[in-house]
């Protein structure tokens, strides 16, 4: 391969192995690396690496998943020990555990809120920025910025902005008559504030996926509808939304998984408070597993909620593949 790609700039001609002026060492180090690699490796090397990678993936994904299934039948209290076998005891206790069910409820509320919010805002933004222009590009970049802010920083900034005494949000909302609320300290408002912050972070991604899909819709379809006398409503209901359905499904499923697995906002924004009002199931799992060290019980929690997420993950991947097939 290397003789195809090595070009002798001094003679302005391609080098091949017979007429090469520098047989042993080539001038550029990466040529040497290529030469060595092409001598040393064959397809077998990549196949071997694929097996190593598969083993690693299995040992940090499949093995833990299986271990969690098994551990949920034991009452482990120390890391590395199974403890004694208790059968379905953990699950029975879990069914009566009000704190756990409350945390699942909190997580579901959060996930549904974030999905609905980011989908609605993302859809509206995609529709508004559909026509390509320099301004639309700039706005797009602006809306994508929240994704780039690390979750912890976003949570910190919003904790400051939502402060009841000197937060900017309070200052902005006071003229509207919504001043004086302790957004993160009021048990009735805290989850709503969390959802708002989550939506702020996720809406850019929803917009990007929907916008990409929306811009692929051929103009002719809409022109035909307009000629037949269809208004904006008809165009959206009968042409755009059906065509956008895979993209919408992708947005809903991926952000549903994201927000069901999220941990940072619960920990950093509210710490699960006030009085457990915003303790999502991931935070509950963390506290059960690593603070009170009830590992078997924690595993049962993970299996119960994780089992709910598996079909969503499977669906999201099937949509992802379909989206890919359409794009390619």
């Amino acid at each position: 391969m290397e003789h195809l790609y090595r070009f002798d700039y001094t003679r302005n001609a391609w080098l091949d192995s017979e007429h090469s002026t520098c047989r042993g060492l080539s001038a550029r180090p990466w040529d040497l690396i290529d030469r060595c690699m092409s001598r040393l490796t064959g397809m077998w090397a990549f196949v071997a690496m694929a097996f190593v990678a598969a083993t690693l993936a299995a040992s940090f994904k499949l093995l833990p998943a299986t271990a969690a299934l098994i551990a949920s039948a034991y009452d482990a209290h120390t890391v590395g020990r199974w403890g004694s076998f208790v059968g379905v005891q953990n699950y029975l206790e879990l069914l009566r555990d009000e704190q756990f069910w409350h945390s699942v409820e909190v997580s579901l509320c959060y996930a549904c809120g974030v999905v609905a919010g980011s989908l609605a805002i993302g859809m509206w933004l995609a529709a508004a920025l559909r026509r390509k222009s320099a301004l639309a590009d700039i706005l797009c970049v602006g809306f994508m910025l929240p994704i780039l802010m690390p979750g912890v920083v976003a949570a910190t900034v919003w904790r400051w902005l939502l402060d009841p005494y000197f937060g900017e949000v309070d200052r902005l909302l006071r003229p509207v008559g919504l001043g004086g609320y302790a957004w993160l300290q009021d048990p009735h408002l805290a989850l709503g504030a969390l959802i708002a912050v989550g939506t702020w972070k996720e809406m850019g991604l929803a917009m990007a996926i929907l916008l990409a899909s929306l811009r692929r819709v051929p103009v002719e379809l809409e022109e035909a509808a307009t000629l037949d006398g269809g208004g904006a409503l008809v165009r959206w209901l009968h042409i755009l939304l059906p065509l956008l359905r895979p993209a919408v499904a992708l947005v809903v499923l991926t952000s549903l998984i994201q927000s069901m697995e999220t941990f940072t906002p619960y920990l950093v924004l509210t710490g699960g408070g006030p009085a457990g009002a915003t303790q999502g199931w991931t935070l509950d799992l963390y506290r059960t597993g690593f603070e009170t060290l009830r590992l078997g019980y924690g595993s049962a929690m993970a299996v119960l909620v994780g089992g709910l997420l598996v079909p969503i993950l499977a669906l999201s991947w099937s949509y992802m593949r379909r989206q890919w097939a359409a794009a390619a």
Partner: protein
Amino acid sequence: MNHARASNVRHVAPFAVNGRPRLMRQARDTLRVLSVITRWALLVALFGAAVGPYALMVVGSLQTGIGIQVHPGILSDAGAQWQNYREAWGQLQFGRMLLVSVLAATTITIAQTCSATVTAFALARARFAGRRLAMGAFLSSLLVPAPLTWLPAFAIIHALGLVDTYWSLVLPFVVGPTSTLLVFTYLGSIPRDLEDSAIVDGSGAWGLLRFVIVPLAAPMLRIVACLTFLFAWSELFWPLLVTQSSTLRTLPVGLTYFQGEIDTQWQLLMAGGVLTTIPPILVAGLLLRGLARPPLTR
């Protein structure tokens, strides 16, 4: 131009143009103008909501301790307090955390992108015994929700004796099933003709990977690297779990810890936040520059 002429026509024919009374048409025009205005107002408001926290974070990081409580959005008369950054740097042990974060995130990004490329190449192009098994391992790994693996993965790291070491931060993320599948799917969409001609010209497997696959899949590889870096940089849960010593704190972990310790000094937290946000923006800008269209359309 057309519009002006149309209004002249309306003047001549006061009753109806296009079979509609003038008043109704005017009402419709007014409505349209109003809807355009609301749309732009809403766009600007949303843009402000998206970018505002960024701007406020930067301004807040330059405030005095009192200024940030009195008027967070406006710089105080004392001017920009650049020493906040120096203070945050010293007080939060920022240099150390930055080093750990950069090292861990870079290692994860490079390792995961390389492993994804090689694995996807082997799985997509080679026929070998056990290919279905390896594919199955990756595909079923995709279906495992992250929280399900938290407790046992910690036990595995514990069993390997890696708790509170640099390797515990990196090892679970060396191989990413998601990245691998993204590259794998992308390779499926690349025509094989180029590879065939390279093989005819005497290329080996390395030549194929280095000179055909990597250049052709470059857009996807860049996206995968960017996503991996963003994930690795902002990951909080895993580093919080596997490291205890303060010398191994990543930036997110450090910021979380210091929330409790320097709660009232928001200007320092904001300075830390600004410094933590710069690398992902830089990396995303560098990696995604030139990919004009958004990821999923390529």
